[in-house]
């Protein structure tokens, strides 16, 4: 770890300075996380009267449980679709905003504000737009001969949460794509233009490859977002339904633990998610390290 040449002396002061952060971390992060790991190895009977140590049995059961496997699948579809949709839209807008000379600040402002909208509110907005009886999108679709009812149709419910989740995330991706585009040296683009590459060809052969670090970084961030931050969208609009069509993993942890009170299974699911975040964090940090050298 890089260090300062100068440092102050003393032990008590740094200990006191670190105490609040470490205390909060220990009490609200490390202890609960270790409890989750511990509970994932236990099973309670139906009345919560006896607890037995079952080793990895909770995990084994999870992977034999079709509802869990379906939730994994739902999560993969949802997060992949959300990442792709919001990143492509953001890239399109960023490329456009990077091109315009006049009004670019105004456009930026108009594109970034949804970052401030809570996912659950994004869900509620689109829930109204898609409402089968009065929503404008359902109305238009009806005009096109498509009957829309996400309350009954699982695929349509999935589309609803994907659209809501992507809508909110476009602005975040936009900010990073635009920053990435603006850091590409103009001279590179001009050199390509002199070499006779038209705007479209330039985009695919020069701009896009140079944006790949940004894209990779955003892909990881968007996955984390879709996995965890979108809980509110699901909870407020579809409740994981119809059936389990939109039960993403985080929602299932919540449902099984808080509502179903299946503590062992919920804890095991938490632990799996934890491993997933740890893996993503490591990937992200290795990547950032490379970005520093780049």
């Amino acid at each position, binding site marked *: 770890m890089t260090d*300062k040449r100068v440092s102050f002396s003393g032990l008590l002061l740094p200990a006191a300075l670190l105490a609040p952060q470490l205390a909060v971390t220990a009490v609200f992060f490390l*202890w609960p996380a270790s*409890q989750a790991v511990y509970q994932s190895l236990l099973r309670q009977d139906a009345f919560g009267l006896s607890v037995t140590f079952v080793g990895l049995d909770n995990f084994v059961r999870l992977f034999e449980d079709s509802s869990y496997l379906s939730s994994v699948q739902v999560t993969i579809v949802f997060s992949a679709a959300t990442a792709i949709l919001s990143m492509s839209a953001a890239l399109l807008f960023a490329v456009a905003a990077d091109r315009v000379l006049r009004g670019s600040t105004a456009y930026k402002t108009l594109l970034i504000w949804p970052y401030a909208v809570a996912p659950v509110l994004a869900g509620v907005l689109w829930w*109204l737009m898609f409402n089968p009886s009065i929503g404008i999108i359902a109305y238009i679709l009806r005009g096109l001969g498509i009957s829309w009812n996400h309350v009954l149709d699982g695929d349509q419910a999935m589309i609803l949460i994907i659209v809501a989740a992507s809508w909110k995330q476009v602005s975040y991706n936009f900010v990073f794509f635009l920053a990435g585009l603006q850091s590409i040296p103009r001279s590179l683009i001009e050199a390509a233009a002199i070499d006779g590459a038209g705007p479209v060809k330039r985009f695919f052969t020069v701009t896009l490859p140079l944006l790949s670090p940004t894209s990779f970084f955003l892909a990881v961030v968007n996955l984390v977002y879709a996995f965890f931050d979108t809980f509110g969208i699901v909870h407020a609009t579809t*409740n994981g339904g119809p059936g389990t069509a939109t039960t993403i993993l985080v929602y299932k942890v919540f449902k099984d633990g808080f509502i179903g009170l299946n503590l062992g299974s919920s804890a095991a699911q938490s632990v799996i998610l934890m491993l997933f975040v740890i893996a993503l964090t490591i990937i992200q940090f290795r990547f950032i390290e490379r970005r520093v050298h780049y």
Partner: protein
Amino acid sequence: MVERRPYLTVLTHLTLILGAGLIALPVWIAFAASTHEASDFLSGLMPLLPGDKLVENYWKVLAHGESSAGAPPIGLMLFNSTVMALSIAVGKIAISLLSAFAIVYFRFPLKMAAFWIIFLTLMLPVEVRILPTYEVVAGLGLLNTYAGLSIPLIASATATFLFRQVFLTIPDELTEAARIDGAGPMKFFRDILIPLSRTNIAALFVILFIYGWNQYLWPLLVTTDASHYTAVMGIQRMVAVPDSEPLWHLIMATAILAMLPPVVVILLMQRLFVQGLIEQEK
């Protein structure tokens, strides 16, 4: 741009206008809905243009709430949200400044251990430790309190790393000059480090205020009593009324009010926001 092609410029503006419109559409619809009365939502197509019930609807949700759903007046929920968002932003910044100061400017045993413990918080979002964290908070008697809403969220590896990065760019000679000028560690922290980090602090504040305001799952867990509902989570109680048509006009008025403060913050501090967002990920 490298070359002038009028059709490309037109296309560019068209894309942006369309994009901005698409982004704004749901909020426009929600706003329009929030200015009508319940009878306008019975069937067919919802109203797309604002009606004349703006003052009435907003006054109703602000002052009275929707009693049938057990939701308190949104005025109270907005207040709760403000308290929570400010506590989280200020708390995170404060404890992160202190710990980054300790990590960068002191040498002490177990420094690496402290660093890694803080790093671990990055890997443990609340969503993966829902139940045990709830139990801890319940055990401490913090359910339905502002402390319970905010303190468990104020540990922050990202903020600590951000300030560590900022401190590392501050020249050593400045610290030495301050030492010669007779400034001890805390004086140096207050007189030099904090003022020199103030734009980073402000940028981070914008991000963290929005982060705190938009918390959903955590308030949902630790508030069982309507008096501590926050605006963002409170709306779920209005949406989830079983066996009746949603009261669209009141729900949307609430949604608009709940998103207004952070959106205003972003619009007013756009530059700080963009800086904060990008720095935080470094």
